[in-house]
């Protein structure tokens, strides 16, 4: 087991190197440069352009820039410098990481808490009106672009005279000390992003849960359990549901990094102080070390998530053994 984990962790290193090189190369292919946006400013002479290029090391060929950056990470734990913000990349990401992780964890939790019961319910009562409605909403949720949903939700709140139209807090509570009023204010704001982000996830997960459960309910051992005269409740909950959830665990591992990076659009529409819009801005401005570091970080999260999911699966399901 330990050997398995060690091997997987070791394998991550070359993969991460390859990813960083790939991403760096893609950014270099982008037309234009970080400095193009400043050209209209009368203060920006050709000499200034040269000076800044030299200050940032942009006068070096790309592979030297890349190797220097890698060297900085390995030797000093320095993830480079943000041209746009004039600060080390590490501290910039750190600043935004808290809310990003908070939102991601909360959204995953909500997705699972809603999707699993709904999936069980629709599997057990496939023909009821409620199941039909749930089904239809789940299909709708999957088909609706999340940015459009977020916008429509804001419009709805606005038309009802609400003030919680974006961000995580009302202006008064930003940076204020925690108390009940602030918590209430946050909850009033949070439901919009959580609804917009998790609806799609809920729809997918719910249908997977339903499919798995229907599969398991048809399996031999469930029939045996029923034949033995075990009460229906025990059959469903103890035998079927537990086994049906197992395959979904590997999905949980995949969802953490996606929630950090694929909430870009919702975060832009809803003005959330997360990493997503920061990544998008950096991408457009060709702030190369920020983009590469963020993508590297998301990839690492994905790999770690996968590993954790595999381990959880082994722990939950005694049939799986890793050598």
């Amino acid at each position, binding site marked *: 087991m330990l050997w398995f984990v060690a091997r997987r962790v070791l394998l991550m290193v070359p993969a991460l190197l390859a990813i960083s090189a790939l991403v760096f190369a893609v950014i270099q292919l982008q037309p234009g440069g970080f400095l193009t946006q400043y050209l209209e400013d009368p*203060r920006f002479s050709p*000499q200034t352009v040269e000076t800044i290029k030299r200050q940032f090391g942009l006068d070096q060929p790309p592979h030297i820039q890349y190797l220097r950056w890698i060297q900085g990470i390995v030797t000093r734990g320095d993830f480079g410098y943000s041209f746009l913000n004039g600060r080390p990349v590490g501290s910039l990401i750190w600043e935004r990481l808290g809310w990003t992780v908070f939102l991601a964890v909360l959204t995953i939790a909500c997705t699972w808490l809603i999707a699993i019961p709904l999936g069980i319910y629709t599997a057990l009562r496939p023909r009821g009106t409620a199941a039909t409605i749930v089904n239809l909403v789940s299909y709708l949720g999957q088909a609706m672009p999340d940015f459009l949903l977020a916008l429509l939700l804001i419009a709805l709140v606005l038309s009802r005279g609400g003030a919680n139209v974006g961000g995580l807090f009302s202006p008064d509570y930003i940076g204020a000390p925690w108390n009940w009023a602030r918590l209430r204010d946050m909850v009033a704001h949070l439901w919009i992003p959580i609804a917009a982000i998790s609806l799609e996830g809920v729809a997918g997960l719910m249908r997977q849960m339903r499919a798995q459960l229907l599969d398991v309910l048809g399996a031999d051992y469930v029939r045996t359990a029923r034949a033995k005269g075990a009460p229906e409740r025990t059959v469903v909950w103890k035998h079927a549901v537990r086994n049906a959830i197992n395959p979904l665990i590997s999905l949980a591992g995949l969802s953490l990094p996606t929630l950090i990076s694929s909430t870009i659009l919702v975060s832009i529409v809803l003005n959330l102080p997360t990493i997503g819009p920061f990544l998008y801005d950096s991408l457009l401005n060709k702030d190369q070390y920020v983009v590469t570091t963020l993508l590297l970080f998301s990839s690492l999260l994905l790999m770690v998530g996968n590993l954790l999911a595999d381990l959880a699966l082994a722990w939950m399901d005694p049939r799986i053994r890793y050598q």
Partner: protein
Amino acid sequence: MRRLAWLWIFVVAVVGLVLPVSAADKPVRGYESLGVVAGKQGGRLTMILGDSPPSFFYYGVIDSNLQALSQHLYDGLVEYNYRTYELEPALAEKWTISKDGRLYTFYLRRDVKWQDGRDFTADDVVFTFDQIVTNPEARAGDAGAFMVGGQRVRFEKVDTYTVRLTLPRAAPATLQYMRLYIMPKHKLLPHSVEGGAKPVDINSAWPTTVDPREVIGTGPFRLQAYVPGQKVTLVRNPRYWKTDAGGMRLPYLNQIELLIVRDPEQQVAQFLAGNVGQLNLSGAQFPDLKSRQQAGAPFKVISSRTLFGSPPHLAFNFDARNPELARLFSDLRWRQAMQMAVNRQRIIDDVYNGLAELPGHGVAPISSWYFDTRSFLGKFDLQGAARALDELGLRTGPDGVRQLQSGRPLEFTLTYGTDSAVWPPIATILQNDLKQIGVKVNLQGILSRTLLSTGLSGNYEALLLAFGDQPDPELRKPIWQPGGALYYWHRTTQPATPGGEPNFAAMQPWERQVYDIWETGGTTVSRPQRKALYDKWQVLFAQNLPVIMIAKPMAVGAIQNRYGNYLYSLGVIPGYNPVPLIFQK
């Protein structure tokens, strides 16, 4: 200019006799015509910041959000009058300029305090210009503005409250640059060369992680707190050196909050929800908000003519890669025909919702430098344009598209910005109208931020772009002087080496004339003489159409009814900040 300064001294003296204000204070008065009334102290205003400021050090990064934030924190030696856009005293109580225009003496306002209580003196002024602004490594410095004729301007402290500038030769635009914000020497010395640091270190002063108490200015508000990515909070500077007309100390507001909101729709949502007090709008947003106001919403939507703001133009590349097109685009008759095909009225009506006016040529119509060139704009006349194209020998082919002499179809690519409310509709309207006179336009949309670099690279045929107008034409010299760094529609006029002589051989006769006007204008001291020169330039511009000006947009803004004294401002012009006058009712 000097007359104005004396007038101010006179006004200050008279007010000083009548009201018990300190001689050092500047009363802000004379704006009754703009609707300014006496306000009351207190209250809070929340405004929008388009993104997180990258730093708190104004001269460290060129960034519009940092500029919007900095205007509340700092002052320059001079500033603009809100109504006339003329320069008037700010931190400098008065100034004198020698007859030959080479010696500027600024007499600083006494008793002005930095927000931490230290005295503001000539040392701070000299330090700001010597160690920061003219430091070539400062990323948002302006070393170029203080290089006159290849030599540096000299800054000297005469006494504690007097600063002298010595110029190698006369350069009347220098006074404009004295709007630059003055920084506290006692806080920034360690980051400067004088304080023992490397020149480049000045850029790392005051990062956003700094203790807000370190970031101090002389301005109406001081930095109180910053929540990364969400909000900047500013509080009233109780020692500010301006008073209102009645002698009450400005600013009125106790607090300013700058909410960081990137998405324009989210900005509108925050305003409609009442979380934000003031919002700048585009013409396209006007009908929605104005009709909400009519329906009883608690805010006002205001549109006003403004000096600042960017009038779009249509440029044809004189040096287009296709030699046949280059020859055509360099021909004045072509550009005249194109001007006739620009439906300015429709663009003003449909793109700007009527919130724009006919453009000036390089100068805003509201500016005192403006020369009325409207008669040169002509009328929208597709038949006339078609006739003009006929006369150029561009005959219509069987498919309805005109043909060049070589027999190839007359088509060109029009590059525009996709991520804007203005460029796509203008481009589409032009394409549609030109199609009717047999000119095929291929649209090429790119991100607006790359428009100028595309123009400067010369890799385009026609381009839609806008340059901001400024109160003094001299500030836009690199754009409009042939051979200037931003004169992108005729790149062959550029000097062979940066800073060298431009390529006169490539210039058309009128371009040479314009070049000479700018050269003379840059060293002429007398205001009437400069005005005459720039009038001539505007006429040459309007006649020869280096670019075809399209419209001058008005400024549109919305403000909640609970605030008074709202003068529209784009918010990022150093030396033009009417926020201290805003009060909460």
